[in-house]
């Protein structure tokens, strides 16, 4: 399957071509180059998936999908312990699934951007960066070892930086891009340290060890391996915007909306989840005791982000917080997974599958939501909800696709989000009912704020003046991706829901991807499915009751009753201010400034002092060299007399 190399090479070539020669191309040519490269990638990815799952298929002996490594070479040798930095392509169920997700969403975004970015200055640059991002993200998911993952991890970070800062004349975009890069880089520092520890104690950067020696060195490592994994998890938490490191993601919405859909909703932000999933066999085998860290970070983030999302007024911010919350769901699902064995009785292993499933479905409907939001913003030229309202008349297609995605994210049966979220909650319940109920509650909050958003945009109070001045309309090229993505959402949702309730013999997502690669048939736990559906419908009902009408007396009353709570949630509980304080007031003002001062005045002062001392001494001695012959002669005379006197005496 060496042709998979082209999955990475095509966008790389397109990046180089557009990056170097882009300015000589017309917008149209540049767009076509990027899109065609992506079309190639998509075709290859689908073909690779087909070949992987259905042609090569399960291993006859183990009954699992075996990992395939079509390409692997030493990129950079390290010379101690035989460590080496490899580059290659690893195909296993999750990386193949990620190939599908990334290529699909990226392809949709490429098409969509034709309309959204039309006439923008730097159109070629935009497509170049999209290609760069796609290349890096694809490289990340097919990484054969942790170091290769880190390399592409950094590259996606930088492409995210470049794309967030695409409108580089806007101060908000500059600040946001800087913040995104620095926060994730800070997290990556831990990732790197984790890699160093991992590499040293296991003697390799590979993800798995097939040889007993590798396993033995794990066993010797004691708490070292869990520590390494936790450090890597911090890296993943940075990229996936888990709680204390989430602050960059909402600001990242300053980038063009298709970019938000691609990078900050569907693909890059799930890199952290993917990383934990990739290292999952290690987590489960060697670091079970440390996994509650993942769970509780995830649970808290999910709750926090959902709470904040209820109060935001910028539609992209709402979606951003919803993304954070949903990614936290995936993290929790991984955390509650306690064993690798699958099979119907082994509920402990459902989490892994559920997490990957949710990653897949979330990527599709969240991309659809963001692209829909892009259409809306394109139509009304504002991100704020008060500029919208009643848009269902003007943007019918966007309205329907947005509604479909909202239903999906809320967890309504026959929409894709239902199946995956239901599995997550089942997994949580199996781990601990407390976690399960908390997650159900957060799922209800999800439904509530998503429908608050939906009503705020398409129903609610219409900003008639604005819409009269500028008639909102849809662009055709931009609606196609929406339709495709919502068809995927509905199709996958309907199929998996039916499969989960026992049709098609339960053959659905779990049959392809599961913790140990065995065929896992999804069967819904009826009580969980029923509870979560009812709760979701109640939450939607509540949102309808509060936000649907032309006037919203209840909402106004609520704001009036809890002004402080609303304000805190609106200000994201002042996390940004905390960061601002720590970085500027503490690190800059109390560390960097004094160091700079110290350098100029103490260290440099010491050398200046030396120079001054030498000068002063010379000046002192200089008076002896007065240049007055008479004085010299006198000294000479006195000296002669003294010498003579000495000769006479001794």
């Amino acid at each position: 399957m060496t042709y998979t190399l082209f999955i990475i090479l095509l966008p790389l070539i397109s990046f180089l071509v557009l990056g170097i020669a882009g300015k000589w191309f017309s917008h149209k040519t540049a767009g076509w180059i990027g899109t065609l490269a992506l079309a190639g990638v998509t075709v290859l990815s689908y073909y690779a998936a087909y070949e992987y799952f259905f042609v090569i298929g399960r291993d006859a002996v183990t009954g699992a999908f075996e990992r395939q490594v079509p390409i692997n070479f030493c990129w950079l040798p390290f010379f101690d312990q035989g460590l080496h930095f490899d580059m290659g392509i690893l195909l296993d169920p999750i990386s193949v699934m990620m190939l599908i997700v990334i290529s699909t969403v990226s392809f949709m975004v490429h098409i969509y951007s034709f309309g959204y970015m039309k006439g923008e200055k730097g159109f070629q640059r935009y497509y170049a960066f999209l290609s760069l991002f796609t290349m890096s993200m694809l490289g990340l998911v097919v990484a054969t070892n942790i170091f290769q993952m880190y390399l592409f991890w950094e590259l996606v970070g930088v492409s995210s930086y470049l794309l967030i800062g695409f409108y580089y004349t806007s101060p908000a975009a500059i600040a946001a891009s800087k913040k995104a890069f620095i926060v994730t880089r800070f997290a990556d520092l831990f990732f790197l340290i984790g890699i160093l520890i991992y590499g040293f104690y296991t003697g390799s950067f590979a993800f798995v060890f097939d040889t007993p020696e590798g396993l033995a060195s794990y066993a010797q490592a004691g708490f070292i391996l869990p520590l390494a994994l936790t450090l890597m998890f911090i890296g993943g938490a940075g990229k996936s915007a888990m709680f204390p490191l989430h602050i960059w993601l909402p600001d990242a919405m300053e980038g063009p909306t298709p970019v938000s859909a691609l990078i900050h909703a569907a693909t890059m932000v799930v890199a952290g989840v993917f990383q934990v999933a990739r290292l999952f066999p290690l987590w489960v085998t060697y670091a079970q005791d440390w996994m509650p860290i993942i769970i509780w970070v995830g649970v808290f983030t999910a709750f926090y982000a959902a709470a904040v999302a209820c109060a935001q007024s910028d539609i992209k911010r709402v979606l951003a917080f919803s993304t954070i919350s949903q990614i936290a769901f995936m993290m929790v699902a991984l955390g509650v997974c306690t064993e690798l064995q699958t099979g119907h009785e082994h509920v402990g292993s459902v989490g892994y599958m559920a997490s990957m499933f949710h990653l897949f479905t979330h990527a599709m409907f969240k991309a659809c939501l963001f692209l829909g939001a892009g259409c809306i913003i394109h139509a009304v030229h504002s991100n704020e909800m008060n500029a919208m309202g009643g848009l269902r008349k003007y943007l019918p297609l966007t309205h329907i696709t947005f509604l479909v995605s909202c239903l999906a994210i809320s967890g309504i049966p026959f929409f894709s989000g239902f199946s995956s979220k239901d599995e997550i909650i089942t997994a949580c319940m199996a781990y601990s009912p407390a976690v399960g109920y908390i997650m159900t509650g957060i799922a209800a909050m999800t439904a509530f704020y998503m429908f608050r958003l939906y009503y705020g945009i398409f129903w609610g109070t219409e900003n008639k003046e604005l819409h009269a001045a500028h008639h909102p309309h849809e662009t055709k090229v931009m609606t196609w991706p929406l339709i495709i993505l919502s068809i995927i959402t509905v199709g996958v949702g309907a199929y998996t829901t039916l499969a989960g309730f026992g049709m098609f013999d339960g053959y659905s997502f779990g049959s392809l991807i599961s913790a140990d690669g065995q065929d896992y048939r999804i069967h819904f736990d009826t009580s969980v499915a029923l509870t979560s559906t009812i709760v979701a419908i109640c939450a939607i009902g509540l949102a309808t009751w509060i936000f649907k009408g032309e006037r919203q007396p209840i909402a106004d009353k609520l704001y009036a009753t809890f002004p402080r709570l609303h304000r805190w949630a609106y200000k994201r509980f002042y996390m940004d201010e905390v960061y601002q304080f720590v970085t500027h007031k503490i690190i800059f003002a109390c560390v960097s400034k004094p160091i700079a001062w110290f350098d100029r005045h103490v260290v440099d002062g010491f050398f200046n002092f030396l120079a001054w001392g030498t000068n002063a001494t010379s000046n002192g001695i200089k008076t002896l060299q007065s240049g007055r012959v008479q004085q010299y002669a006198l000294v000479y005379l006195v000296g002669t007399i003294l010498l003579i006197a000495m000769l006479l005496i001794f």
Partner: protein
Amino acid sequence: MNFLSLFVLIPLLMLLGLWLAKGVKAVRGVMVVGSSLLLVLATYLTIDFLAQRAGGNTAEMLYQASFTWFEPLNISYRVGVDGISVAMLLLSAVIVFTGTFVSWKLSPNLKDYFLWFTLLSMGVFGFFISIDMFMMFMFYEIALIPMYLLIGVWGTGQKEYSAMKLTLMLMGGSAFLMLGIFGIFYGAGGQTMNILDIANHTGGAHPIDFAGQCIWFPLTFVGFGVLGALFPFHTWSPDGHASAPTAVSMLHAGVLMKLGGYGCFRIAIFLLPEAANELNWIFLILTGISVVYGAMSACVQTDLKYINAYSSVSHCGLVLFGILMLTTTSTTGAVLQMLSHGLMTALFFALIGMIYGRTHTRDVRLMTGLMQIMPFLGVCFVIAGLANLGLPGLSGFVAEMSIFVGSFQNADTFHRVLTVMATCSIVVAAVYILRMVGKMLYGVCTDEHHLKLTDATWEERFAVICLIACIAGIGLFPSWISSMISDSVAPIIDAVKQAI
């Protein structure tokens, strides 16, 4: 006639040519021809070196040649190269070549400027091909002196002060160095100045006893360390770089500072292995401080050149740090870091010089939105910045990762803590780079004087593209150069390790 001597001979001929040249065109012609020859020579050397190694030539130094120069002290003109020197020669050739194009329109006295510039590069090349301690020292001094004039005459700002400070501090280092070299010479029996002969001593024990090594090691290390911006002897660097003309900053930060790291490894560690094992902790602490301290102070600087100079302190600190960790990987990483830092800092200084030449200010607070006005320079600046903060695919990443992985092979707490500290610098690097890029390039240009500025000229573009190509080349295909360097590093490190 050994062909390594061409590295000294070509600059000498260039000096002659420059002396005879009349008019700006002739001067430029001599420089372009000479520096291209050097580049071709360095490339040929690299290829031939790799071919010889592939052909099974495992001699420690290749292309050796020698003739006695001063009998009483056993000083000979002795040349030879291993993988490390080849890498450094290649780097120097690239920097000299691009430096020529960067100084294309310098005025006044282009001819005199290039005379000193060539003399400086002769010193640098001579240093890297020498394997005789005294010759190394001599070329080292040849490289230092022109710096004084280049900064003092063609510099900007407080140029006399900076030139004086730089020269005096480096000369102070040379004084230590001279003591160290003679200490080694007499300690090893006063028979030879040849590095290889001293290192490959016959018989069991090292000719210099342990107490002696403990005296000469700090002297040599500090002597070279001053040039390698070892904390707290680094303060010449910000002032010196800030005042120097563009190409001199390039050559200085790009190549001359590498003399320090190279010398530390080649003389201090190679010849005094026991002391290196025993005393490296002191210098590890100092270099660890350099790494973080340089990065931290770069965060609050406002002058572009100061930012880059402090970032150089941080990166060069990493070079010495990697060398002192005494593992093959970290030392290979250190040499790669020399190469990579040389290229990217040269690129940075070149760009800063070009921007300064247009805006006449280097204060980041006074510049905004330059990306719109000079897109080419802006994009290259971003690339340089990304290289500086260690973006994969560019050379910095490869070097830093080698250093970190190598350093982590020392399994005790002390080395671990220092390594973790050093890794923090990559985050801080992101802070100062992005701050600088964000302030200077992004945003909307408000200064009407800046609105009329033009983008890069052809020779500037050429120089910048050459450097970027080298940076990306190493960053994308690091394994050949890394193996070439490590082949030469490994025996030395093994010898040092065995000396305990």
